[in-house]
């Protein structure tokens, strides 16, 4: 009985951790820049492919995971310069443009790398909890998600960049008056958000079959989590991920993964109706 509970708890923590990993990048970009990047899923897909390519060309899985944020972060910078830069304050237009980018990226990867499923083996084997076997990699994912959150939090609260970034978020004109160029900050923030997405995709790669349409499964969940979470990056995203992740895995365990998804989506809908600003709105009581 105890071991069953322990295994279930690990499962729930895993579901929450996955959501956090997938949503953190999107939340940062949305919270800081009010940009909803619908191509975030495809950035994750690119991160996953980095791992695949790194494996194929002999560099190994872990090198791939380390490389992914760098590669995808660079791609994010390019996207910001070429597309996003022109669309600040036009929320719906950024959604549309990044939607176009998303389907374009899927097509491009299909053409270049092929549309068939690739995969790498899940490393680290498994360990026993009583008479159950749990994949060690799942625990790694939980740890990685926690590490990302902590690192990002430290970055925003203890570094100069973080200070400037938070200032830009609150009052861009003031920051400009102080001699810092807001567009540069936006560019770096977007790059950081993209790098996080790449890392998330790379970490998830050994657990799934990597196809060009990988991002589509992730983006829906990430999008819902971020919108339900609202503009406050940490409180909102963590809160939403916990709530939605718990519901998803609870319902999925009782019935099927499909109803888990439906429950999660329905819950997000209800949450948004009650609190249009998301969980952040409830927290800060701005209504």
């Amino acid at each position, binding site marked *: 009985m105890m071991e069953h509970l322990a295994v279930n708890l690990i499962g729930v923590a895993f579901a929450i951790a996955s959501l956090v990993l997938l949503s953190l990048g999107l939340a940062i970009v949305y919270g800081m820049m009010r940009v909803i990047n619908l191509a975030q899923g495809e950035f994750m897909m690119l991160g996953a492919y980095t791992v695949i390519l790194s494996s194929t060309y002999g560099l190994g899985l872990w090198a791939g995971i380390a490389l992914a944020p760098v590669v995808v972060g660079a791609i994010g910078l390019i996207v910001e310069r070429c597309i996003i830069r022109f669309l600040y304050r036009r929320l719906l237009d950024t959604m549309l443009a990044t939607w176009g980018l998303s389907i374009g990226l899927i097509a491009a990867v299909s053409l270049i790398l092929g549309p*068939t499923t690739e995969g790498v083996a899940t490393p680290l084997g498994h360990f026993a909890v009583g008479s159950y076997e749990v994949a060690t990699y799942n625990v790694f994912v939980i740890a990685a998600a926690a590490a990302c959150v902590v690192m990002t939090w430290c970055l925003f609260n203890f570094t100069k960049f973080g200070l400037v970034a938070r200032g830009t978020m609150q009052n861009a004109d003031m920051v400009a008056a102080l001699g810092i160029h807001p567009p540069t900050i936006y560019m770096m923030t977007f790059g950081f958000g993209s790098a996080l997405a790449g890392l998330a995709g790379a970490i998830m790669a050994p657990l799934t079959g990597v196809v060009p*349409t990988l991002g589509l499964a992730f983006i829906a969940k990430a999008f819902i989590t971020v919108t339900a979470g609202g503009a406050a990056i940490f409180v909102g995203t963590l809160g939403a991920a916990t709530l939605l992740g718990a519901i998803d895995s609870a319902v999925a365990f009782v019935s099927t993964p499909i109803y888990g998804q439906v429950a999660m989506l329905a819950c997000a809908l209800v949450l948004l109706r009650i609190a249009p600003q998301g969980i952040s709105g409830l927290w800060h009581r701005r209504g």
Partner: protein
Amino acid sequence: MLISRRDAIRGSVAAGVGIAASTLVGRQAAAENDTPVGSILDATGAINIYGLPMIDATRFAVDSINEGGGVLGRKLRLIESDGQSNNQVYAQNALKLILDDKVAALMGGITSASREAVRPVVDKYSALYFYNEQYEGGVCDKLVFCTGVTPAQQLGVLVPWAAKQYGKKVYTLAADYNYGHISADWVKVYLKQAGGELAGEEFIPLDVVNFDSVIQRLQATKPDVVMSLLVGGNHIAFYRQFAAAGLKGKMQIVSATFGLGNEQVVLKPEEAEGIVVIYPYFQELDNPANKKWVAAWHKRYGEKYTYITDSACTVWNGWHLWAMAVNKAKSLDRGKVIAALESGLTFDSPEGTIKLDPKSHHVVHSVHLAKVNDKNGFTIMQSVANIEPADTMKVCDLVAHPNQHKQYTPKF
């Protein structure tokens, strides 16, 4: 750096004119004196793991028929379409091939979903259609011929065998669409007949790649046999995760779908070895017709060809059955060809001799149980000859009741 709006408009108009012009230019000149035939299969998208060998088999079959003099003395002109793993595309392509290219016969479709998107078009505009792939059985349509195996021919043999060989407790994992559901129902029927017990049944959507909870439930239930009816590229992850969890020694996987997409090549031997499957055709089959066929295939497509799947042989069968019928009917008239197809044709296929059953429009196959070996192939263990598609034959008699265009679904 930004294009001015005027230039953008000019560009769009120019592009529009260009596209229109090229569509007119691109119209193929049809050669007189040849017979157009159509094929729709998935060359791209998630289903192309099944589609690519089938496309190769299609081209090989049409060329071989042409080398033998063609049909009624005229060569066949193959018009191919890519279904792109998209059922909408299947329907549109079927429309074009039937109405625009006016093909004498249409062959294609891989998933049951794609077949059901094509069938209404075939019925609406009265065309002849061959579905050359295993499926859940039950299609009863005067215009349609299904040459693949049905549950009676696969599960009807596999389930009793597995229960006897490994143990009576079976856990079913099936893809969550019609094929998976109906096949799982048949597993229950055959299991009951064999005196076995269903320990559990789960349906996995086609896009799921995380089998964590599934593996947990398997460990809790401890079945003797895991019956896999998983489909598509994403489900390959199950076999990987199953092996990673160390379950390979503890329960035996048997499957009616593993291998059709060359999963045994994608997975490593330590992940796939020992999985038991059942099909009418394996590349390793030791009969003279197959030896010749494999040699000819390798000559055409190279010695290093991944693996000739059962679906490829089914496609080969379909084309040759049709050609035989046309030559027997001495006409391309649809009614006469159907009558010829219903005359009890037999064909010497690489899988052995097969017979096209007149009443159900399905094929009688001999099947073989085989195990995945360490050479990315299969080792054949046991054979059962001439199994009828009893599930469909029971409900479908197109000779006595010809005016049917439906798929029967079993009510249990």
